[in-house]
């Protein structure tokens, strides 16, 4: 599903965020990216979501070599990857419903379909009934769940999250992580970048440790994708 082969990324300011990264995330797997701030976790996610392109090497997502993807096909590609940010990136002047509906609106979904799917997504994150509420009227945890609802509303096969629990208290963090596990259990490939090693250990899932722009290790080594492990 996601493959990095000899990937390097150097930003315009000259900073080399990744160098010679090789990784593979199988379809239906849930994996954590861990490491210190500035280690390169966010860059890996940006390369998966095609917010950046590699300087060297090859990134394949869902069978697409993202480095060769033409600009006009990028929007369609991005619709297949749900992204959750630590800072939520919600539209503050739009109610929850409009925020969550955005991926469906850009995909030309019918109004009926939008209504059905948005309510289903809000149901999944426990925010049914908050459709007309503005993000500023919600708690940080609720805002994060709106961000997650937006990421999953179009049912993308891949979900990536950058420090999704960074601003949450332990109980909310556990709830959010449980939500990701539930999505993963229905076949969504999930990649989560996090500092929270406690949550990672508690999950028992594979983590890729990134240090100074390189994969420093994989724990537990050789862990199977959850779908395969359940078989």
């Amino acid at each position, binding site marked *: 599903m996601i493959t990095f082969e000899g990937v390097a990324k150097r930003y315009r300011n000259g900073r080399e965020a990744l160098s010679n990264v090789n990784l593979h995330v199988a379809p239906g797997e849930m994996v954590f990216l861990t490491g210190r701030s500035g280690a390169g976790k966010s860059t890996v996610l*940006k390369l998966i*979501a095609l*917010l*950046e392109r590699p300087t060297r090497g090859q990134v394949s997502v869902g069978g697409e070599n993202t480095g060769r993807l033409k600009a*006009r096909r990028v*929007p*369609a*590609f*991005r*619709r297949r990857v749900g*992204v959750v940010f630590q800072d939520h*990136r*919600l*539209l503050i002047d739009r109610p929850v419903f409009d925020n969550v509906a*955005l*991926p469906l*609106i*850009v*995909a*030309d*979904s*019918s*109004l009926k*379909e939008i209504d059905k799917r948005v309510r289903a997504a809000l149901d999944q994150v426990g925010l049914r009934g908050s459709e007309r509420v503005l993000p500023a009227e919600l708690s940080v945890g609720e805002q994060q769940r709106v961000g997650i609802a*937006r990421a999953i509303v*179009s049912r993308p096969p891949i979900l990536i999250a950058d420090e999704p629990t960074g601003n949450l208290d332990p109980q909310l963090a556990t709830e959010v992580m449980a939500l990701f596990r539930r999505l993963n259990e229905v076949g969504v490939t999930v990649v989560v970048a996090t500092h929270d090693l406690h949550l990672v250990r508690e999950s028992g899932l594979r983590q890729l440790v990134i240090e100074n722009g390189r994969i420093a290790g994989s724990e537990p080594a050789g862990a199977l994708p959850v779908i395969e492990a359940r078989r």
Partner: protein
Amino acid sequence: MSGPGSYFARHTHALFSSAGHLARAPIATTFTVVVMGLALALPLGLDVLVRNVRAATADFSGAVSISVFLKPGVAEARAAQLARSARERPGVAAVELITATQALAQFRAQSGFGAALDALDANPLPHALVVTPRPANSSPADMESLRRYLAAWPEVDAVQLDGDWVARFNALLALLRRALLVAAGFLALGVVAVVGNTIRLEIRNRRAEIEVTKLVGGTNGFVRRPFLYTGALYGLLGGLTAWLVVAVTLVLLGPTAARLAQSYGSPFVLAGPGARELGLLLGFGTLLGWIGSWLAAARHLARIEPGSG
């Protein structure tokens, strides 16, 4: 999932979303619309002025005529025949035959040389035709064509084109019309620049929203759409403002112009822009707003990417 219904719904959504953005910033919107309205009002006002001057003077088309002097010795019956021939020519409104006898009587009455004229053995004046073209056939080219036609008759001694001042006046009006077109062209550029700059600022203010929209798979076309509607709405409102400015000006000037016309014995009243002009103005304003916003959006939106912030 998509279809004609959702296409219409998308555009309706973009239109109402743009209208909402304008309504939520009433002061900024008003300033932009007033600037555009004044810019569009100037060419509209000039156009109204030119049309009113033409209506008031009717291009002085009735004042243009050609005097045709026949050779001495041409019989009066032949002169009458020539007058009938001239009347049958397309573009001729009227032909008046002034016989030598009538001309002498007029001269005698108007010149005060009655006694001197009595001393003459014979009437020295020729028969003459005064040919008046139709208003639609009073252009310099038409007049020259008619002059050549009349001068080619063997019975004609001389042809005199009356009303050079009318030609000069019409040339002045033509110059004004040309100036109107040039001014309209430059002011249209100004309107495009105003809308373009407004949309540029709007794009800057909504950068976060644009990034999120692209992040979830929004195409440049999708992101551009509300800005295009915003520009078009600015143009539409600017056109409406221009119409109001000119209409109010005409209301204020109308009574004074009517009194001036009355002093010349004319029933003339100022005419404002009609429904056709209003339609053209609104359409033109909308088009200019659309162009301005499209130029700004094409230039600035492509640079904004979710990872570029």
